[in-house]
């Protein structure tokens, strides 16, 4: 009896294994993670402006000339900054990575480009280098601290000149509010809350503490000290009703649609908004001014800027020459640069002014800025804040201002977070 039990038990196991074995047996062994056929894989950000089709058009001339096949990959539902470490861990990292800048974790994985002459000639190469090493190059600069405004609404509200100081700014907001404007100043949800507040603060912050990131990193200042003044401004605006809790629950797409529909007085955003404006031009006049500063004599203050279209090369690529050649093409070839400017506008010396009138306004403002500064949420190079996740945390805490939290408390929390999270 026991032998027949055992026989039957073995039968049971075998039956259960059949599906599993069948699979393993028909394994076709398709482990094609390496691109050893001379092709180059590039991981890029896919957005409304940066579509797959546009990316492929961009690299087509390079493919034709060099014979190297370029494969464009999007992060597919995640962001590039999440995808890249995951792909590294899986052993399927791409050759070229766009849209993110090196962080303390990823920097060791990147190819050093310093030896290439063309690399050091790229815009913002110095600001984004670490101890003289260049591992990311871009095509231009995206201005960060821009206050887009609805000129028609300004006129209706009796505002004759764009404000230059905080007092003038508050007065402008009050005027817009009295004129019945739905949203005098529009903030948006998620990452935008943090980014917009920082953008408004760049000029004055860098006037008060030049190179503030280094001061925080070496302990002579704290994040709380750095940002409390702007938190106080925001808290005042929340109290006066110029911006509401609904705003910070509204995504940027919707807020931008509101601006274009004429419901918003002032919209702080980066230079890429001018591309959106050009795609759906509003039926009123749009202007741009620099964020306010304390003292009119200092206006306009230093302007926040980030590198446009950053490209990095993975150190472990099977095709370093091809990958480097692609990056060189993207950041030095005039036609390629012009095409990228069409996709997402940016500033660059000597760049042909585009048909985009809004980009032209931005360029004018940018030209009058005394200097450019890197924002805090770009932890890179010598201006890095030695923490990860600065902007999400900043956003999370800053949104408390709309719930009535006091600026001092928010600032204190920010400092506490930094103290706990900073590396070494």
């Amino acid at each position, binding site marked *: 009896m026991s032998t027949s*039990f*055992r026989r039957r*038990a073995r039968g049971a*196991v075998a039956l259960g294994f059949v599906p599993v074995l069948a699979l393993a047996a028909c394994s076709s062994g398709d482990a094609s993670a390496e691109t050893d056929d001379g092709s180059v894989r590039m991981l890029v950000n896919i957005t409304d402006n940066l579509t797959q089709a546009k990316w492929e058009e961009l690299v087509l001339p390079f493919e034709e000339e060099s014979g190297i096949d370029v494969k464009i990959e999007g992060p597919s539902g995640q962001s590039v900054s999440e995808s890249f470490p995951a792909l590294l861990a899986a052993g399927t990292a791409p050759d070229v990575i766009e849209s993110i800048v090196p962080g303390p974790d990823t920097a060791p994985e990147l190819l050093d480009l310093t030896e290439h002459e063309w690399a050091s000639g790229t815009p913002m190469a110095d600001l984004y280098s670490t101890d003289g090493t260049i591992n990311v190059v871009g095509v231009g600069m995206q201005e960060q601290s821009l206050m887009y405004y609805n000129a028609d609404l300004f006129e209706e509200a009796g505002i004759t000149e764009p404000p230059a100081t905080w007092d003038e700014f508050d007065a402008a907001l009050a005027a817009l509010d009295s004129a019945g404007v739905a949203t005098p100043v529009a903030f948006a949800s998620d990452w935008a809350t943090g980014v917009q507040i920082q953008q408004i603060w760049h000029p004055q912050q860098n006037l008060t503490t030049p190179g503030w990131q280094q001061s925080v990193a070496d302990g002579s200042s704290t994040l709380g000290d750095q940002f409390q003044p702007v938190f106080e401004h925001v808290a005042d605006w929340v109290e006066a009703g110029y911006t509401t809790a609904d705003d910070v629950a*509204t*995504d940027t797409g*919707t807020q931008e649609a509101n601006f274009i529909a004429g419901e918003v007085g002032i919209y702080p955003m980066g230079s890429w908004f001018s591309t959106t404006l050009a795609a759906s031009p509003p039926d009123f006049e749009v202007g741009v001014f620099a964020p306010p500063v304390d003292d009119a004599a200092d206006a306009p203050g230093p302007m926040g800027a980030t590198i446009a279209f950053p490209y990095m090369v993975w150190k*472990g690529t099977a095709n370093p020459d091809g990958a480097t050649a692609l990056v060189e093409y993207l950041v030095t070839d005039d036609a390629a640069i012009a095409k990228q400017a069409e996709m997402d506008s940016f500033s660059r010396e000597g760049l042909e002014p585009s048909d985009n009138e809004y980009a032209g306004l931005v360029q004018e403002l940018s030209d009058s800025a005394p200097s450019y500064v890197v924002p805090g949420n770009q932890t890179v190079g010598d201006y890095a804040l030695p923490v990860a996740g600065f902007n*999400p945390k900043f956003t999370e805490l800053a949104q408390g201002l*709309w719930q009535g939290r006091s600026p001092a408390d928010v600032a204190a929390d920010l400092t506490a977070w930094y103290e706990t999270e900073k590396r070494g």
Partner: protein
Amino acid sequence: MARTTTSRRGFVSSLANGLMTIPAAAVYAGLTVVPVGFAVYYSFTRYNGIPSQPPTWVGFENYARVIQDPIGDLRPAVVVTTLIAVVGAFLVNGAALALALLLRRTTPFNTFARVVMFYPHVLSALIVGFLWQAILGPQGAVNNLLESRGTSSLPFLADPDWALATLIVVIVWAQFGVQLVLYLAGLQAVSPELQEAARLDGAGSVQVFRHVTWPALAPTVTVTIVTSVLSLLKVYDVVLGLTNGGPGDATQTWAYEILAVSFANNKVGLACAQAVLLVLVAGILSFTIIALRRRAEEGAEAVG
């Protein structure tokens, strides 16, 4: 349970039964248990996830960070997750059971209704978040309607407390279809003869339910409670699409902390420690639920 076989036969029988579990155990052990082992190992290290920068052993440092919670950012996530699990489990199971009873018979109308109740689960959680944002956002469909009527808008996603309540409702909406299907399947196995007999004896529907259906359904109820609680504990994708953890940290769940905060900042060690704690809590909860339901289930087998 009277043993009708000798203990040796019983042992061999059990062994033979045990062998039937091997295929499932092999796949599961290889691709789930072993990776969990990795995760446990990482939880004792500081590691940024990049293979060329190997992990450094730090002992219980990550666990200390989680439990001591120096800046109080993890405690709210615990509260949020607990609320979602408890309130959500009640709502999900209540709705699912009620609708399963209503839609028990297979008529064309019921078939249509079943598809309607289930389809939210078909949509990926990310999409569910998107959709409900379009409906309940400050300028979403509902608020548009309210404003065109002259009433002020409702802060479904703008106020922290409202946002959490909205999140729970949306999760229940998306989730209860699974439990509905489980209850429907379970109801099919409840002996129709017994119910018929009870009804012939003059019992009303409520009594039939209480004394025949509900006890016979006991194992299904255990399954639905455990599966709903477990999936509620892991809520993440819906949060991403609906509020991305906002406003502030009002809708950050524990899984959000693990994936969108710790992992996103390349703190694999900390993320794994948080995950291990989640697994432990989930384990204790399930064990408790299954143990508490033992008696009811044995009653169900007796009914059969």
